[in-house]
């Protein structure tokens, strides 16, 4: 960790100098390498979590890693955990969501969830954002709601 830290900071300064208010970085899975450097330099982190039992069981490790990261970056805020790939027709998936909501503080799990949908696969095959697909209006609504929820949390954190 640290090898890319200066470049990450330079990138953030460039984005700020060009007038951007928010910069969202989608990092690779794991908490090492460039991902760790990004977490060392950013203000907030949003944690996507697959809605399945095996994924939920990794939550403690994720929390431990974020707690360690706070030593390096005391300013790091956890915006929340967003449940992804939620399958409304699969009981185990819904149970995983509910279990995480019971386990974690209420404010930690985002109200909006991202459903699992074949549209994501079709969109990625075309190299397009899912929102621009012909049937993407529904998913776009979900992401709009998620965006509003994130904006509210970001706004609440600002002085």
């Amino acid at each position, binding site marked *: 960790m640290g090898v890319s830290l200066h470049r990450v900071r330079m990138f953030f300064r460039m984005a700020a100098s060009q007038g951007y208010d928010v910069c969202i970085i989608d990092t690779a899975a794991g908490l090492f390498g460039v991902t760790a450097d990004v977490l060392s330099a950013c203000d907030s982190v949003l944690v996507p979590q697959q809605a399945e039992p095996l994924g*939920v069981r990794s939550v*403690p490790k994720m929390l431990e890693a974020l707690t360690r990261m706070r030593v390096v970056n005391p300013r790091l805020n956890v915006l929340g955990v967003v449940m992804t790939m939620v399958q409304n027709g699969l009981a185990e998936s819904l149970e995983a969501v509910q279990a995480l909501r019971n*386990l974690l503080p209420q404010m930690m799990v985002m109200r909006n969830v991202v459903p699992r949908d074949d549209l994501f696969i079709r969109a990625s095959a075309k190299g397009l954002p899912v929102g621009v697909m012909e049937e993407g209006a529904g998913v776009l609504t979900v992401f709009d709601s998620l965006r509003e929820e994130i904006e509210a949390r970001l706004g609440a954190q600002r002085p």
Partner: protein
Amino acid sequence: MDPVQSWLDAKEVRRMAESLMAPAPEVDQSAVDAGYGDDFEGFANAGDPGVPGHAGLAAQAHQPDGRPHAQRQPVDAAPPDPAPVFREPSALAAEESGARVAMGNTLADARRVAEGSGMLQGEQEGNPAGELPATSVSPTPASSPALSPDVHPEAVSPASVVAKSLHDSPFHVSSDQSQTQPVPVARQVSPAVDVAPPVVPAAAPAPPVAPAAAPPAAAPPAPAPAPPAPAPEADLRSADSSPDEGAGGSERGAAHGPFLARLQRFSAVLRRDLDASAMFLIDNEGQVLLDEVENPKLIQVARTLANASYRATRQTAGSAAVGNLHVKIGASATLEVIPVRSRYGLLILGVIFPAPLGAERVQQVAGLLYKTVEPDSGR
């Protein structure tokens, strides 16, 4: 068996989560960034007197203790807690110092290469030792030389040459910035008689997207007034020439003359019938033919989307056939992106509507644009 609870210590997990959700403590910025300073960006411009602003910045920056990088303590780490919950300061310190040594060696190698190739001629006076100084702060340019379009060579100061050389990009702007290649549409649109805007057949149950007027030979009378009589045609000028009367755009490459008039009528139709607020039309090279939005970012978004969808579906002719390309840009504003293939290449139409259009409407708009661009196509 509980699929989740039986695998973990719920109390410990909750405790960690609550501590993470607690507001981040107010940390003295100097404690967090003491090792870098407020304007730290990297070690690339470390302490070169030739870099503008270095003297002033050095006064603000953290003053090193004079020891080499490898011996400096990682000051950004918090002081060790007598009873820390998670204790890995030694590992972090070792990694930080190792990274700094690696960074310093890399920069020293880069500087040697730059000196050997003569890129730093004239700058040696400022640093007779030829070594990287210990300070690791640099001024923050508004835009890094490596990231922004290049400055004209004659306008580059010696200091910026140093900065540029250390951020050298493999890409260089061509000295020939003249636009000798004419805009395809501006040159190739045939100087035909400017006929009235095309009529798009109405699609039930939606209200028809009707043009301002109908040509004399066409049947249905339109409620809008007739267009002005077509003026004698003059050859469309190349992109190098200056615009003249009747040209709506003064920038190079923008549509002008009868073609502009047709585009303006097309825009008026969209505003009247579909509540469009603004539109732009660009070609595949990014040349703006008509721009009512005046937002380069939206134009770039439209271009990116259109090219991505075109590559993905190998669209060959006609209107957009890849779903419904639109991007929500505001609470009641959606940018609809409609690529249209014409004999002049791929044209990308961007229109701001209050809400996304349906697929059928997109097809209608694309068809209308095609007829606007190629009025004699007979389509």
